[in-house]
């Protein structure tokens, strides 16, 4: 038959157990990348002697190499690095027994940090330099200025780009099964291979990611509306990216 509907429905049910893994990778990466990316963005802007250059290099590398290559590099190097680390620390651990999900979390956190660094950098540039000057002359320390004045303003212009970055992250997680992690794609591929139901399987994958993506967009829209109501600003995204349709 042209389209194996029973396979489709059955696998749709099985896929549900893979969704938490995808969500975990996305949320973990965002949770780690948000503060780290923010820190990196500020470090790059302030041109701290060694760290700014190192940060630039790091970001350049993460954004200049394909995700799949990063995945392979981490997947192939992490066990070695970890076993060396464990040897040093004298811990006896079975490096090969480590859940590959850990490596997935590492590589996506690293990548997302670099991406968010750039998002925050451009958002930072939309905040007028005079804000910091006003804060300092009013007695705030730099840290306080960032926390109470600069960063809140940044977030308004960053929100559109953050949504874009989250969607890219979600799409990239479709590659984790190359690290043998059983996420949505992993489950679909395994089941599809049994009966050569590849077309149905990938159609299902396509729909699942579509739904997840719209949910992400919905969440961001809610957050943005909440922010707008709080700060009472009109809808403007100076320097921010235009939201796609």
């Amino acid at each position, binding site marked *: 038959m042209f389209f194996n509907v029973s396979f489709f429905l059955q696998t749709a049910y099985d896929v549900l157990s893979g969704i938490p893994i995808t969500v975990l990778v996305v949320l973990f990466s965002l949770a780690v990348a948000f503060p780290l990316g923010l820190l990196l963005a500020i470090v790059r802007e302030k041109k701290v002697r060694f760290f700014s250059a190192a940060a630039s290099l790091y970001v350049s590398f993460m954004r200049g190499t*394909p995700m799949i290559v990063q995945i392979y590099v981490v997947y192939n*190097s992490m066990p070695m690095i970890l076993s060396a680390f464990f040897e040093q620390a004298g811990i006896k651990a079975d*490096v090969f027994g480590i859940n590959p999900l850990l490596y997935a979390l590492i590589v996506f956190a690293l990548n997302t940090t670099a991406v968010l660094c750039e998002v925050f950098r451009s958002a930072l540039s939309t905040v007028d330099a005079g804000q910091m000057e006003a804060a300092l002359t009013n007695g705030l320390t730099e840290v306080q200025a960032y926390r109470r004045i600069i960063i809140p303003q940044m977030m308004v212009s960053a929100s559109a780009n953050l949504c874009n970055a989250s969607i890219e992250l979600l799409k990239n997680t*479709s590659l984790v099964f190359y690290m043998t992690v059983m996420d949505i794609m992993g489950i679909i591929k395994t089941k599809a291979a049994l009966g050569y139901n590849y*077309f149905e399987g*990938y159609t299902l994958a396509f729909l699942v990611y579509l739904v997840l993506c719209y949910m992400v967009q919905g969440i961001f829209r809610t957050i943005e509306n909440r922010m707008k109501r709080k700060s009472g600003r009109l809808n403007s995204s100076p320097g921010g990216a235009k939201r796609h*349709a």
Partner: protein
Amino acid sequence: MCRKAVPAFIISDERESGELTMGQFDFFYIFKVIPVLLPYLGVTALIAVLTLLLGLGFGGLLAWAKLGKNKIAKGLANGYTSVLRCTPSIILLFLCYYGIPKIFGQFGINLNDIDQIYSVLVAFVLLYSAIMSELIRSTYEAIDKGQFDAAATVGLTSWQTLRRIILPQCFYIALPNLGNSIITLLKESSLAFTIGLVDIMGKAKLVISLNYGNHALEIYLALSIVYWVLTLLIAKGTKMLENSFRMGRRTAGNC
């Protein structure tokens, strides 16, 4: 171009988990393998160029629909963009790879033995036309409508206005985003190996399997260097183009 083979990842999974127990990490291997991989950049470049051209073309049509008055066309174009923006490339690749022969099979056309590159191109053109349509649309909207008015008052026809005034400005405005899109295209094209295409990634996978999984890390590092250098070159090139097309520098002291 290689014949249809078992998708590459299956080979690699088995071998690579074994890699860790044998073979030392050889730093210099990275540089030894780069010359082996570089020739296959040609395939990558071919895909990139074709996708760019076709994507710009189809994307232009979509942008035209989005900017026009026909509500149905606008809705379809926007819907298309929205859906494709949420589709991971790898899924689209596999969908085209399996789906195209299947769909055409219903009409009695046997496409089971066509080269993978066609699936790759279809998938990427679909994806990139969505991106390009947004680029073109936002660039067009960024042009001050007053330019059209002024051109009308001095007597230029619509075509003259478009060609001599509007499009050159569009090009300049679009440059940074265009550069970014090309870099993204380059990175996404790295997934073409999953359906068996032998571009630089595909070749790397072949080398790894020929080595029984040895030196996989070195080879992947070599790949990352190649891609990184390419990305930096594209970024540099875009910057240079921007500079030469700037049409008047902002000098200090001018309003």
